């Protein structure tokens, strides 16, 4: 395993509430990513980070924010959850330090249900 832990693994919340998902890695890798997985859409990139305090938007970033204050932690926040954000969220890290190889290792996923 690549030493990636996501928490919580399952969460049910109500529309309009804030939600934070945490990704923790023990591998000291520079690149960290948040994807969401939905049927028929595969995985879509929400945000990614290429270093502490360095983040950028992905394909589906609206309604999400991220923070990375330490190398090992990458937080995904839904400021006001909506039903369309019901999904499975995967964190990933990249071994390709500085090389952008694209090879990713994934966490176990966090299943979020917004009622």
């Amino acid at each position: 395993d690549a030493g990636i832990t996501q928490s919580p693994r399952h969460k049910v919340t109500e529309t309009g509430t804030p939600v934070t998902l945490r990704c923790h890695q023990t591998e000291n890798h520079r690149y960290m990513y948040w994807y969401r997985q939905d049927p028929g859409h595969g995985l879509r990139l929400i945000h990614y980070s290429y270093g502490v305090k360095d983040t950028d938007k992905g394909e589906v970033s609206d309604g999400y924010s991220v923070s990375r204050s330490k190398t090992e932690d990458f937080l995904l926040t839904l400021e006001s959850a909506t039903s369309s954000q019901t999904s499975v969220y995967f964190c990933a890290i990249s071994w390709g330090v500085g090389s952008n190889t694209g090879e990713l290792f994934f966490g176990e996923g966090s299943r979020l249900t917004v009622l």
Partner: protein
Amino acid sequence: AQSVSQHNHHVILSEAASLELGCNYSYGGTVNLFWYVQYPGQHLQLLLKYFSGDPLVKGIKGFEAEFIKSKFSFNLRKPSVQWSDTAEYFCAVTYSGSARQLTFGSGTQLTVLP
């Protein structure tokens, strides 16, 4: 925008049948190509990858893929599938212009009947 297409959404095979899953990408420049597999209830795992060199790439569990640049394709193959290959398969690509991002196809669900 660059995209990855997997035209087979659900494939059903019997054990020992041969498998070929299609993957096409839209970008004409330099790409790195990947196949990931997701077994039921699990996270994605790398199956194989292509960066350069021999266009025929061999991965784990007897899978292979062939990069055909002229067709913008990277099809996944296995000569004889097993029940344990039942999973969802995702093709993914990194484009030279956005090398920090990995773009995924929508996935192909493979069901192997015993």
